[in-house]
């Protein structure tokens, strides 16, 4: 390793703290109260971050933050784009862009009432056989870069299917026109998709909000191609379900996985769930290499802090997978002297 010990010419600064709480909820309440106290001292919410090893570790805290009316944004972990309903919407746009995208065809055909895998396969076979009129004699769809006029002509060919399937093609035919902007395409498709959303998901109201957010995102785009690329490569991080909308002054607290916090810095940083079995994870402890990667993660987490670093862990966490009760602080901080890390307990 090239590693050198870190030093600074900055003077002063208080000791990092290691705070143990009797249980998860006490840890959450501690963090909420400490955040509010720091804010009173003049540290804006934007200068504070709560970091954790895995995305699910902040769920309880999120509830307490909401109760305390503290706006936050969560980064990392679960992605909005990975939710089934958003993937459905994306699939419609994908076949518009690339009519050979069999994966998406399959998805949207199976959403139709009365269409099973066999029917879907038949329709797809048929789709793949259709050619673009006016394109090269043997050119399958898309070849020759699938210019937009060719593509809209292409969509005119789908006419004699059973009512349910035909409905899908009629929508696609309509929105495939190059003159229809991505946001309008999305809107039309959403009208078509809505009844399926309702029958498929009990929590369709919540999901509907995600789709509204999706609709908003599409407004920013001129063409479906770049919309799809951005969604695939740089998806918006959070599902609306997980986000408290930021307050009016754009003041919000950051909740983030450590992976998503890399390169960044805050005045005050909390590392929660520094609990053996959670950080390092249960799964990693079998392998030295993996434990070392977890250690580097802890190093990344701690080095995000400018002025205050507070590490917390709850005791008495039941781990379902192993049937064990987790009680010990993370091995990465266990036994570190009080001259480096000041022990605290929440009561």
């Amino acid at each position, binding site marked *: 390793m090239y590693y050198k010990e870190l030093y600074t010419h900055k003077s002063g600064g208080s000791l990092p703290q290691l705070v143990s709480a009797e249980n998860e909820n006490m840890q959450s309440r501690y963090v909420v109260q400490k955040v509010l106290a720091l804010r009173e001292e003049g540290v804006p919410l934007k200068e504070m971050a709560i970091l954790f090893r895995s995305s699910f570790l902040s769920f309880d805290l999120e509830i307490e933050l909401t109760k305390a009316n503290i706006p936050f944004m969560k980064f990392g972990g679960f992605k909005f784009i990975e939710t089934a309903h958003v993937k459905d919407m994306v699939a419609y746009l994908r076949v518009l862009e690339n009519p050979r995208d069999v994966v998406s065809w399959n998805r949207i055909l199976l959403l139709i009432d009365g269409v099973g895998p066999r029917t879907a396969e038949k329709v797809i076979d048929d789709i793949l056989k259709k050619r673009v009129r006016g394109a090269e004699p043997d050119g399958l769809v898309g070849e020759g870069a699938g210019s937009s006029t060719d593509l809209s002509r292409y969509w005119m060919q789908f006419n004699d299917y059973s009512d349910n399937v035909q409905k899908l093609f009629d929508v696609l035919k309509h929105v495939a026109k190059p003159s229809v902007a991505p946001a309008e395409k999305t809107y039309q498709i959403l009208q078509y998709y809505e009844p399926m959303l309702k029958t498929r998901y009990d929590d369709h109201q919540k999901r509907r909000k995600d789709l509204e957010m999706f609709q908003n995102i599409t407004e920013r785009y001129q063409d479906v191609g770049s919309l799809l690329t951005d969604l695939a490569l740089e998806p918006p991080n959070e599902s609306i379900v997980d986000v408290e909308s930021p307050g009016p002054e754009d003041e919000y607290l950051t909740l983030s996985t450590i992976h998503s916090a890399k390169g960044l810095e805050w005045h005050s940083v909390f590392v929660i769930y520094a609990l053996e079995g959670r950080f390092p994870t249960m799964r990693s402890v079998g392998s030295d290499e993996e434990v070392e990667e977890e250690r580097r993660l802890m190093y990344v987490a*701690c080095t995000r802090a400018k002025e205050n670093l507070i590490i917390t862990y709850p005791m008495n966490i039941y781990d379902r997978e192993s049937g064990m009760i987790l009680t010990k602080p993370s091995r990465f901080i266990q036994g570190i002297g009080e001259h480096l890390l000041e022990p605290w307990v929440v009561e």
Partner: protein
Amino acid sequence: MKKFTLKQLPTDHLHLVQPQHLKIDYKGELNPAQYEAVTSVDGPHLIIAGAGTGKTRTIVFRVSYLIELGVKPSSVLLLTFTRKAAFEMMRRASILLDSRCEQISGGTFHSFANGILRKYAGQLGYDANFTILDQTDAEDVINLIRTRMKFDTKERRFPRKEALYDLYSRCLNTLTPLKELLALDYPNYLEQEADIQAVHTAYVQYKKQHNLMDYDDLLVNMVLLLKQNEPVRAVLSDKYKYIMVDEYQDTNKVQAEVVKLLAFKHRNIMVVGDDAQCIYSFRGSTIRNIMEFPQEFADCKIVKLEENFRSTQPILNLANEILKRSV
């Protein structure tokens, strides 16, 4: 008759700008090691340094410095781990200097590769409007092929789609032969190596046939394009004259290959990282990229930054202690 012989002027007129004509006081804003890294613009550079020592800040100032020297913004290429991070660096450089810094080429390896591949898709047997499969889509396709090839009904247990995807992805990202990975992680499937390989071949064909790429394809096809196609490689190397990569400790071998190929003409490449912060090796990133950079580019200048500008000493003491206790 007297003759006047025209001199061959350097294309970028780089060294024609005098330091006193620069808008920004680079010397005042940076410490000597950072200043050195910002102002020596030609040839390979490796900045290796701990957290908070100003690595990213050095890149930001270097972008601004290059632009001040008259380098065309689009020929500066800045690659990093998220587009957000790339935008943030461009934004900071723009505040520092001016909006020209927003016009540099930048983004993640994947988004950069995507842009290039849209343009040259035809060279690889793809159309420009290919769509991108996410991991679950990719697994579904693999599953379909697995079923079609009747591996779901053989007497012998065959790896599931998740395991297959994981295997293929790691083969590509770590450039490890399938056999080796099998021996390491799935020894009970070792005998079926040929079949596993066959499913992969069919998977690759299927994607091409349907104009689909998965995430790994973006990088792999980019390398393929650069390797196979000498003229394209030359065009791109001419286009991206100054390449910088932040968080280099979290790149994988394919990404290192992309960088090497792109820089082949000019070798103006600066990579920046901290081996103690490598946190993506579960996805195939490897600190060997950073460690072997000096061998790969024998004449590279190594810059070490030692002073932390971010945290108080008590925080750094704890961070040092955490690393020191490593086994």
